[in-house]
């Protein structure tokens, strides 16, 4: 877990920890082709191609977690990076593309980091089974009655990406649910 995660908001029960990552930068990548100029520029800068359907990818150095790309729709991936300068640089590099664009969503989309063996127990209480991601998956679904993109990058952590206006609601729902996870 990144030290920058705001611990004062963490929800912790046995086997589960959920905390808001207030540092990570978030962007929507919108593109009309997965092999055009936009995708090539993206790959050149981040080392990552647009992810396949329901896939999430990280890199170039997985341990460093420089970039995470999560599929959201056939024309959209969500990009996460704790390096805001690099995110701005990517935005600049992509700004001249006509087959795709980067829309900065930092502050608009919030990221919750959930870890622990009871993640699945939590997620099936927030929404349908279909929105629970397997390892390397990115699934968009309805949790706590709000739209959430759930991304599983390794066995121990799942990212819940939610609009800022719904974040407090989702956290409150998680807090109540976690309290009943006995």
């Amino acid at each position, binding site marked *: 877990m990144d030290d920058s995660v705001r611990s004062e908001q963490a929800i912790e029960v046995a086997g589960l920890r959920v905390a808001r990552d207030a540092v990570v930068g978030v962007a*929507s990548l*919108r*593109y*009309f082709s997965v092999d055009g100029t936009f995708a090539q520029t993206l790959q050149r800068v981040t080392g990552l191609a647009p992810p396949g359907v329901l896939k999430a990818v990280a890199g170039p150095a997985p341990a460093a977690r420089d970039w995470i790309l999560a599929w959201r729709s056939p*024309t*959209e991936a969500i990009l996460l990076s704790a390096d805001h300068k690099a995110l701005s640089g990517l935005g600049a590099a992509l700004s001249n593309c*006509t*087959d*795709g*664009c980067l*829309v*900065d*969503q*930092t*502050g*608009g*989309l919030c990221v919750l980091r959930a870890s622990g063996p009871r993640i699945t127990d939590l997620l*099936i*209480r927030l*929404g*349908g*089974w279909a929105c629970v991601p397997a390892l390397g998956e990115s699934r968009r679904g309805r949790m*706590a*009655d*709000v739209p959430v993109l759930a991304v599983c990058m390794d066995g121990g952590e799942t990212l819940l990406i939610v*609009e*800022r*206006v*719904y974040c*407090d*609601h989702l956290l*409150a*729902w998680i807090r*109540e*649910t976690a309290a*009943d996870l006995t």
Partner: protein
Amino acid sequence: MTGKRFAPPAGVWIDRSRTIGFTFNGRSYAGFEGDTLASALLANGVTLVGRSFKLHRPRGIFSCGVEEPTGLVDVGRGARRIPNVRATLLPIYEGLVAESVNCWPSLGLDLGALTNAFSGVLPAGFYYKTFKWPSWRLFEPAIRAMAGLGRGSLEHDPDRYEEVNVRADVLVIGGGIAGLSAAVRAARAGASTTLITSGRTLGGALGWRGDPAVADLAAQARDLEVNMRTSTMAFGVYDHNLVCACETLVPDGSELRSPSVLRERLWKIRARAVVAATGAFERPMVFPGNDRPGVMLAGAAEKYARAFGVACGRRVVVSANSDSAYPVASYLREQGVNVVAIVDRRPASLVGVPLPAGVRVIQGAAIAAVAGTRAVRGCKVIAVEGAQGRPEWLSCDALLSAGGHTPAVHLHSQAGGKLRWLDESAMFVPDGPAPGLTSVGACAGVFAREIVESHASETGEALARGLGAPPAPVGGAGRCLTMTHVPGVNGKQFVDLQNDVTLGDVALAARENYRSVEHLKRYTTIGMGTDQGKTSNINALVSMGEYTGRAPPEVGTTRFRPPFTPVTIGLYAGRRVGELYRPLKRLPAHAWHEARGALFENFGDWCRPVAYPRDGETLEMAAQREAATVRRNAGLFDGSPLGKLEIFGPDAARFLDLMYVGTMSTLAVGQARYGIVLNENGIIVDDGIVARMGDHRYWVNTTSAGVERTAAAFEEWLQCEYTQFQVAVTPVTSRWANVTVAGPRAWEWLLAVGFDAALAPSSMKHMSFRESMFGGVPLRILRASFSGELSYEINLPAGREVALFERLWARAAEFGADLYGIEALQIMRVEKGYIHIGIDTDGTTLPGDIGFGRGLERKAAEFVGRRSLLRPAARDPDRLQLVGLVPTDGRTLLPVGAQIAPGPPPTRTHGHVTSSYRSPELGKPVALAMLARGAHRIGERIRAYHLGTMFEAEVVPLPFLDPAGKRVHG
């Protein structure tokens, strides 16, 4: 009857070493761990449990399960008082408090029982034809007060409920021998298998009969990692194999838990294949006095004996129409009960089991009367249909009823399955599998033990392998007569015990030509209530068939719908209570506004400041002051909820031309334009401002409430119609906060806090857009105005707005500026005649109705809704059109919703008032209205009517203020 417990091994479900105290109707009793309230009451000799729904007749325990029609009690106290709990399902616990329902002042002396004396004037549907003079409403309160059952708590439910979503390859509903067999074989075939059962233990009827196969199958299921859940009642089968079930975590009404516990869990299980193994209910016999306490189902009496060790009577008569009566009689006799006789309605030729030794069997006979009011004292037996024998009275304290079986086909029916009538056993059984759901065991009409096991196993394996299930080998229930009642005898013969519906009521319905079973149900209330007719439906439709000359399959059954059993509202709500009732959007600067005295209200999904009242100010006073301040000097407004979209792509300009009545492709970079969004019917669904940020990039403001709707509409057009377009629609409402500075001194104020001089009104014109920086923060600034004043809508990344608010607020006094809320904004936009989508428009409003008809004339290109605007009806001059109204007395505020008409109602209206405020700037009330031919009625005096009051007003042109629009330019 006095209570009695049989000696072990009877009572396999109770722990005699643990005594539990409870209270019923204020009196203390004791039972054993494992008892239900019903078994404990019967063990204590309590037969009178409650009063009936309509006639307040004494009622006792009738069954031993979910089908219980009469043994209903209110449980718990205060906030945890739960009404109409089935005593047959409620496990007792230390401190349990239960009360009878529908009786006053007491169960024994119930004044409501007087209605029984007047039952002759209270037949089925009496409220449709009696108590009409002088007025039904005169009698209605008293009748409603006397009817009904338990009383629920009016306090907030203190407990919690949750929802869990899971999936399975094979879901088995029912934990009896059939369900276990299916689950074991499905799991053995490699399917992820879940088994749920409403019982507290596995095994069903064979479980409490001590069958060793149950333990063996349960062990196999555990070894195969079948996910098994007890106390979990499947109550609904929905589309695509979604099964909903309620898991009971703590018993109803317990006060021992505090302050709040997780009470129930809603399981939503999506399965590839569903197996229903829900068993069957025993069908009661219909005879005069069959509702008396002490009359109960024979199978229930056996279950009370075997599972709870409870004797339901010492001298028992069994009224039979089924072979199942005989083993019950034998078992009870073995336990020392005096089985006085089996009174079998059938001729000897239909009996398929050996007659029990030592028990008198009277064949071809029926019960013609029951002695006793609050407890059975005896019954009269008569010969029927040609059988020989004299009427005789038998003394007994319990009368057991074994009319046959009714397979629990509810889930099969909910899944869309059809039924067929099995005449020899007088029951409806599934006619093949339902879509996605296969029935096994008794609920499939398969009653022979060995066949049940093999068929269920084969079904489990076939479904696990994705194959079709084998056909059900229906049979094994023996032969029953279709009709169980006795024609031509006196006395009330109850068909539906819970709703007090008698054979006479069914006959009356037939005489009044209610032939459909659905009409019968609604006319008589048969099959309604908490039991949903589990013990009454078959007898009802059989008797309906008899009275109308039809066989049961011709009469048919009512459609079984979810829920199978009553479900608490709390379970449906789950976590959605209090703060979690619905997701409420808060402004990023919510706390900042709160600290400055904002009064918040919910507008759509948003919690927004409506005004900032000062000491002693009402909301209206505050809004008047704020609006006047903005008009005079300047104001600061949080517009963050305003919908924001980024539209990108080589085809963005073409696409926006299609989406808006206005032409957006001609906008130069940095220009902005107002536009209206229509649906394909030409109806206005949203409006807003489109600004061009670059060659292929646009900034779109929608209404606050309409952004999701508009974004979804744009996506739908792109995905379904304009699929060749390269356009991306990205919602960014949450990303960007909005700080709006408006008023004649707005620019002075912004300049004072350090805004770039290039943003001055002289260089940045009304309806223009700039990207800028302020203190290192990127800004997107739009010169647009909903107030009619010089206005800067400053968009900046969410989280940065508080700093900007602080900087502006620190200098506000210098410019005579103040904060303003939604209410002041509403005043100002009405003064300017600006519409608010959904307030001034509705699902009929076309652009021409609000003065935007010229958009159609001026735009040559296609746009969504255009064709509909060309219809003659859309050009009808009599349509409602937006106008201004001012009261003729210059003082009276016109009520919103007031109907404009030439005379008082009932009169055809000419329109209605849509928005109305007092204008501080004009010193009089002003209103917007939609008025027929409004554009041609300027200067006309009209009348508006609201709640009996008439208002006079004059139709005036819009806007009320600054018609030249000088103010917005600064």
